[in-house]
């Protein structure tokens, strides 16, 4: 039966009509045999414009529509909704892009542009003639969420989701929650204690009935797709039965083995059995088998002897846990650029040159110095302090090209706290620019400079070296153009933020992408900043880009609300424009299974052919191009259709 097609040509103001002679195109197209209706209008996407389409479908009983207008990414959805309202299958409506691909690029060749617009419309008509009516694919959805990372981002996202009624699995690599925020002293700009606020939130997570907390655990494997992820988690052996352990701490007191604590940035010691930090959440100790004498040579059982609850379990093994979730939040956080790699700052060999987190530990009341600022080398109070900003940040040639965003403010905070503790000390701050772009930051900065007499030196440091028990800092003040030399007692480097260890492997498991520095990439920097380009994977915190606590918390809450929207329905609807297999032709060679980037192709062993997993397929066409027998086709973009479309152009 002959089709009855409708063509609707948009002027887009003067965007199209200024170049393309829309009237003559509409007239010519209207003469095509199966075109029952052809018209033009100033703005097809407007309400009256859509009404024209709706009326024509009804009055002329159309069974296919071509709208010649802007890119389908702008208004395909608008027009498909409009045709659906008249009972037409939305996949019988196609967009002919005559703006971005025609009028905008041929503004000086009006005649040719008019002809090209006509051909684009004719090609699209060819497509519509062979389009099948399709229905969106409906997929059942698992309404649980995995949150990877137990820092402030992961904690916030988990709490928001759990409060919304969704079950959350929170995964943390370390022994306890908190992430880097647990290491901080006070937060800018209000100088509030960081730990107490964090601790409250962590306790809330631990007690929440909807949150399943797995600490000392990692994600081993992920399968599946949005709405239906299957996970394998590995819970590492803690050698302590957490059900029996009361957290009394006797084992920690009695453990004879000490080693340098990473949490304390090497400035403090920790025991072979202990918690990550005092009153950690959860507050259960872990045996570090690589340091424990029982595991090295079996010579020590002290913890087992003193434990009143008999909770020590040397035989405990790693546990593999299977879970199913519908969405995943990646909140993997950051690390600081290792100072050992920085030549001009002493390669990390000068003990009085420390990084920002080490200084945070030093000024934290629960830190290795009980909050006192002292030189790591001799324990004396430093009277001349040098703070260096932009260390390894904003250096595209050798280190990281980006701005780490938090260093300006935390350096101002550090210098303030230093000046509070050592009023007769002199802080010098080397900077390139001072960036204080959030609420209250500029005021905080100006206030500290005004009240604390911080000396800001605009310039870089060329060399930091040990000389006569002091740390000599050579630099420049570009505002006076003079070289500056400071014989400092201590130097704090504001080193660049980099993605935390292992993010690349994790991203590969999740099929999420990372940028060249290893930060997870968002689907769109402006419009989809918390979604990964892989559906169902969401990003929060510094794993995506350097940011401060306020921004991290905002982003975490944003991911939580996005996920709540995703999981608010029972079924997920997916675009049906995906691959399908002509089972009579498929020889079962399996090339498509290898080539599919979404793991959507699978061999069916009984019939010996390859099938498409409709929920996973993104319609990229890789299998179609690679199939040696032309057994695969893409729905509504079959080889037949594409060749007919090409024919109209040639």
């Amino acid at each position, binding site marked *: 039966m002959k089709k009855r097609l409708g063509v609707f040509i948009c002027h887009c103001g003067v965007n199209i009509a200024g170049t393309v002679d829309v009237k003559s195109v509409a007239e010519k197209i209207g003469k095509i045999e199966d075109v029952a209706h052809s018209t033009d209008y100033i703005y097809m996407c407007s309400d009256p414009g859509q009404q024209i389409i709706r009326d024509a479908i009804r009055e002329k009983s159309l069974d296919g529509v071509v709208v010649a207008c802007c890119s389908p990414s702008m208004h395909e959805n608008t027009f498909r909704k409009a045709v659906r309202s008249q009972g037409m299958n939305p996949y019988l409506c196609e967009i002919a892009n005559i703006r971005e691909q025609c009028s905008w690029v041929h503004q000086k060749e009006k005649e040719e542009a008019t002809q090209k617009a006509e051909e684009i419309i004719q090609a699209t008509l060819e497509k519509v003639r062979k389009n099948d009516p399709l229905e969106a694919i409906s997929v059942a959805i698992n309404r649980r969420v995995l949150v990877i990372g137990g820092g402030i981002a992961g904690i916030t996202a988990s709490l928001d989701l759990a409060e919304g009624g969704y079950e959350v699995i929170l995964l943390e690599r370390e022994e306890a929650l908190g992430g880097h925020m647990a290491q901080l002293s006070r937060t800018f700009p209000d100088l509030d204690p960081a730990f107490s606020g964090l601790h409250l939130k962590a306790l809330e997570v631990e007690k929440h009935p909807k949150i399943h907390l797995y600490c000392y655990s990692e994600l081993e494997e992920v399968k599946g797709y949005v709405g239906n992820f299957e996970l394998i988690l590995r819970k590492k052996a803690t050698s302590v039965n957490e059900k029996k352990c009361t957290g009394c701490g006797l084992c920690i007191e009695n453990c004879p083995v000490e080693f340098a604590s990473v949490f304390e940035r090497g400035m403090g010691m920790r025991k072979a059995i202990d918690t990550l930090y005092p009153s950690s959440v959860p507050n259960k100790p872990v045996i570090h088998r690589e340091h424990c004498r029982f595991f090295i040579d079996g010579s020590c059982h002290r913890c087992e002897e003193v434990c009143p609850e008999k909770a020590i379990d040397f035989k405990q093994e790693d546990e593999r846990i299977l879970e199913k979730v519908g969405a995943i939040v990646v909140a993997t956080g950051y690390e600081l650029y290792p100072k050992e790699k920085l030549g001009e700052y002493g390669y990390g060999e000068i003990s009085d040159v420390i990084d920002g987190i080490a200084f945070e530990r030093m000024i934290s009341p629960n830190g290795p110095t009980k909050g006192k600022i002292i030189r790591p080398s001799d324990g004396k109070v430093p009277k*001349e302090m040098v703070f260096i900003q932009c260390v390894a940040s904003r250096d595209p040639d050798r280190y990281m090209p980006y701005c780490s965003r938090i260093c300006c403010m935390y350096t101002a905070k550090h210098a303030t706290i230093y000046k509070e503790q050592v009023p007769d000390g*002199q802080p*010098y701050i080397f900077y390139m620019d001072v960036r204080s772009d959030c609420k209250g930051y500029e005021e905080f900065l100006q206030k500290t400079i005004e009240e604390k007499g911080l000396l800001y030196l*605009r310039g870089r440091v060329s060399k930091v070296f040990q000389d006569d028990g002091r740390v000599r800092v050579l630099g*420049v003040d570009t505002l006076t153009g003079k*070289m*500056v*030399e400071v*014989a400092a007692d201590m130097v704090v480097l504001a080193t660049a933020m980099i993605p935390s260890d292992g993010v690349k492997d994790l991203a590969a498991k999740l099929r999420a992408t990372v940028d060249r520095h290893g930060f997870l990439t968002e689907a769109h920097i402006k419009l989809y900043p918390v979604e990964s380009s892989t559906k169902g994977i969401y990003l929060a915190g510094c794993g995506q880009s350097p940011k401060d606590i306020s921004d991290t918390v905002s982003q975490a809450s944003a991911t939580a609300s996005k996920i709540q929207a995703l999981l608010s329905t029972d079924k997920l609807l997916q675009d049906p424009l995906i691959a399908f297999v002509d089972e009579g032709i498929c020889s079962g060679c399996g090339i498509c299974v290898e080539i599919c980037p979404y793991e959507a192709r699978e061999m069916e062993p009984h019939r010996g052919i390859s099938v498409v997993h409709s929920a996973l397929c993104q319609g990229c066409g890789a299998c179609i191009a690679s199939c040696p027998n032309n057994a695969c086709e893409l729905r509504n973009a079959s080889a037949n259709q594409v060749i007919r479309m090409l024919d109209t152009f040639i």
Partner: protein
Amino acid sequence: METVTGKGKVSVSFLEEVMRKSGENLNLCYQCLKCTVGCPTAPYMDIRPNNIIRMIQMGMKKEVLGSSAIWFCVYCQTCGTRCPNEIHIGVLMDALREMAIEEGVPAKEKNIHLFHEAFIQSVRRGGRAHEVTMLMEYMLRSKDMMKGSLIPGMKLFLKGKFPLLPSFIKERGEIKRIFEKCQTKIKE
């Protein structure tokens, strides 16, 4: 480039001294250069006003007190009115001039300090500057007859900007007290 600090630290004592004597909080300056771009005499200065503040922060006492800039400032207050951080550079320059005199740092320009002193004396006498007596005092002390300024001077005279007789303020005793108070403060 020369090194500011031979060995040891950037001296903050100069900054503190200037802040105390001028009453201006120089820590606030973030080098926006609003002062310098508006200053009518900045094009003639050897060091621009914003750089003067920076050099004070850096403890460069010798360079600052020995500069021509501090003597070129005419105290028009454009800088202080516009400064986003309320630093009155006119007041600062005045304090620096007094410090230079105290420290015996000579100005680069011949006689420029005599002009400054004649101005101060004039204010001291009447509570406001009287141009004719001020210039007479300057000419007598400096032996500079200001021949180049004769024609502009005549123009000003014809416009009534050079009144022959001084006008004094009502409470001259107050001015006297201010000067006495300042001097005892400087001595402290």
